């Protein structure tokens, strides 16, 4: 069939005159990794707080945390992205809105995407943490309390260390989800991997080469994250605890 394969296209110059197509894809890789890392930090921080507070037993706090989770999990990520990008600047006080709208588009899309992805993922992390804490045998917090540890101490020295070890596998898949979800940011103009591949495809008509490159990059990131998680699991592992050898 009439598709002209041209694997050398990666070394041709992109329309911006500065990078080769390979260069734009690598730029895309940097944007993907960058936005993912920033979003992950936001997600851990906010999700950690919401998750821990959702287990404290205070009815109002728990209801608020549950509401937070429901809000972010029932609206598609793309819609949330549009809300942050198009609606948010309009509903905040005029000065902040102006600042956002006149900022350098590369950074405004980056930060919008990072905040959107971060908060979206934070609700999922909150759920994991709550599930982890609730899955701990009730005797653990009781024993810690019986020794005289205060509530914050119980969380800090017993509940959270145990929960973190237990939820490492689901957290690994949340991290991978986050990286995949970063592709949605291309719809607001962030030139991450998918955006770079799409742009390359549009200019060169070398469809399969472009998307194959993107595929390879995502698989590579995937492998790195999985290896990282395995290393973390090994570092944190405690002999005799949940499936570790005695």
């Amino acid at each position, binding site marked *: 069939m009439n598709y002209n394969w041209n694997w050398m296209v990666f070394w041709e110059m992109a329309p911006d005159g500065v990078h080769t197509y390979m260069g734009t894809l690598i730029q895309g890789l940097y944007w993907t990794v960058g936005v993912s890392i920033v979003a992950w930090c936001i997600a851990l921080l906010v999700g950690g707080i919401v998750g821990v507070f959702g287990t404290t037993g205070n009815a109002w706090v728990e209801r608020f945390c549950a509401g937070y989770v429901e809000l972010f999990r029932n609206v598609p990520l793309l819609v949330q992205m549009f809300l942050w990008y198009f609606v948010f600047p309009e509903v905040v006080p005029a000065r902040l809105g102006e600042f956002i709208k006149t900022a350098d588009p590369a950074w405004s899309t980056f930060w919008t995407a990072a905040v959107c992805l971060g908060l979206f993922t934070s609700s999922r992390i909150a759920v994991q943490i709550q599930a982890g804490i609730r899955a701990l*045998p009730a005797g*653990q917090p009781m024993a810690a309390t*019986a020794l005289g540890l205060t509530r914050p101490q119980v969380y800090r*020295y017993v509940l959270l*260390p145990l929960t973190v070890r237990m939820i490492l596998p689901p957290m690994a898949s949340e991290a991978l989800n986050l990286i995949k979800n970063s592709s949605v940011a291309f719809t607001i103009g962030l030139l991450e991997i998918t955006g770079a591949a799409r742009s390359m495809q549009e200019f060169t008509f070398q469809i399969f080469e472009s998307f194959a490159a993107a595929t390879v990059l995502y698989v590579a990131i995937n492998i790195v994250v999985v290896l990282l998680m395995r290393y973390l699991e090994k570092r944190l592992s405690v*002999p*005799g605890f*949940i499936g570790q050898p005695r």
Partner: protein
Amino acid sequence: MIEFKNVSKWYGSFQVLNDCSISINAGQVVVVCGPSGSGKSTLIKTANALEPFQKGEILIDGVSVGARKTNLPQLRARIGMVFQHFELFPHLSVMRNLELAQVKVLGRTADEANQRGRSLLERVGLSAHMDKFPGQLSGGQQQRVAIARALAMDPIAMLFDEPTSALDPEMVNEVLDVMVDLAKEGMTMMVVTHEMGFARKVADRVIFMDEGAIVEDCSKDEFFERPEELSDRAKLFLSKILTH
């Protein structure tokens, strides 16, 4: 030392503790027994405020457990508790399990905590395992570490909630031996258990509970030597557990 005064507790509309009054003096060993569901575990957990109660008063060395102004962490540090399922912290080594509360609650230095931990491990016969993790120890070993962990806080009294019920039979004695030694040294102990052999050896008094209320509270001798004077329910219970 430990005083329960007319303590009652409800879960919703279901009453789990019915007007319980017990007085335990310093150095006394009191064994609480009774059928499951009788409320004995719940009762012992009210003593260090792990379970709240709605009516009555509990005094530990004169300090009221239920009073709002009572500093609970400090109070709990003065009473040791040993659980049925050991509840060692699996992510910490044996040594760290012993040191954690000493440092964080009592404010001891790391060295002091370490010293105290070592001497207690030696006392329960487990010095060789100090750097191991709970997952690597047998049930009997874990429970002995748990006792050491509670003792590390230098408590004025010890509470035991069915300490041997979750152990395989061959490990029960190693734990009971530690408890007997503790009793002989004069520790105030409140022990929920079915181990009547232990009660016969070191208990000063035996309390029998049924359906949330205290049915018998008598000296060990009365309980074991003159069983015919016990209530029917106590006799029935005794007959069931004394056959093995």
